[in-house]
């Protein structure tokens, strides 16, 4: 079985290799400090999961994504991700049609509710995802379409 730990250590080795070769030093440094550049560069939910070492995602009614039906301005779209399920490790917010899909990763510790709200940018109308990565390896998601309208005079 290809565990998450192995995947991480493999990518760490790769990063060291690239660093030695003078390639992608910024990526390696960022990862060393706890920022997963690969995940934030990924173009799709599947790619994000690969970068984070997650399983194939499954739709679930136990995960909630909150977002408006229509956003008057794509520059600021309120999005919330939450779940009442026990054993959630991480909650992610993704916007499918953004240049990079992943917007945010929240680590769900013991002292915090699995319930976060933030605001994201959207380049166009798109599905918005809340993804829960569970401690048993399951990856569950909910999605909602947000329509980004043209507001104002458009000039």
């Amino acid at each position, binding site marked *: 079985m290809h565990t998450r730990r192995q995947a991480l250590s493999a990518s760490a080795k790769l990063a060291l290799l690239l660093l030695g070769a003078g390639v992608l030093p910024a990526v390696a440094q960022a990862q060393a400090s706890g920022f997963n550049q690969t995940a934030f560069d990924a173009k799709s939910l599947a790619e994000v999961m690969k970068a984070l070492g997650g399983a194939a995602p499954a739709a679930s009614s136990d995960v909630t994504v909150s977002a408006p039906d229509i956003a008057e301005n794509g520059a600021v779209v309120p999005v919330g991700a939450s779940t009442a399920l026990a054993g959630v490790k991480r909650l992610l917010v993704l916007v499918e049609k953004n240049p990079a899909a992943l917007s945010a990763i929240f680590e769900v510790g013991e002292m915090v509710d699995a319930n976060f709200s933030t605001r994201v940018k959207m380049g166009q109308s798109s599905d918005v995802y809340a993804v829960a990565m569970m401690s048993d390896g399951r990856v569950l998601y909910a999605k909602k379409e947000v*329509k980004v*309208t*043209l*507001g*104002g*005079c*458009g*000039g």
Partner: protein
Amino acid sequence: MKQQHPLLFAVVTLIVSIAGCATPAPAIDYDAATQEMMKNSFRDQGIAKVDRLQQDEADAACSKAQGAPLPEAQRVAIEAANLKTVRMPSDGQFIGDWKLGEQLAQNGRGMTWTDASTAPAANGGNCYNCHQITKAEISYGTIGPSLYQYGKLRGVTDPAAASAKPIVEYTWGKLWNAKATNACSDMPRFGHNKLLDEAQLKNLMALLLDPKSPVNQ
């Protein structure tokens, strides 16, 4: 000569009482002061020069009316003068490509000081800012009437047919110079003020009148 004094006094009293002043003050010519203020308050920026503050007869009269209807004779004169400016298409063809028309209708750009060029090619039609047009676009303004099913509601099945000619020409005139039929219309005079060229206007015509346009579904 002497008789004018009481009359003049009465006028001054009237103005003072309208303005609600407690003390008699010389009447201010607010219209002249406004012209002076406009002149002093603006400067050139990019393509937007101060000469844009100059008003033609229609703009001056409608500004002064402050939203009230114009005196009938003045309205008729302004509409007649603007009707004279309407130029029908040089090749007799009124209908272009509705798809390009839809793009123009969506485009709200053009002629601001942040735009680079005053050429029609750089301008949008701004149509959705004020009008509903296709059913698919839910982000539309309501300053102007809905244009959804514009051609269909007017029974236009073939814009080239003789029976469609009056509505086709009327629509062209509206786009070219809306003040030809409504002296104080809020709609920009797209042809008259060289905001859009003939080809662009034809594309907007197609959006409104082509039976294949989504507007007429």
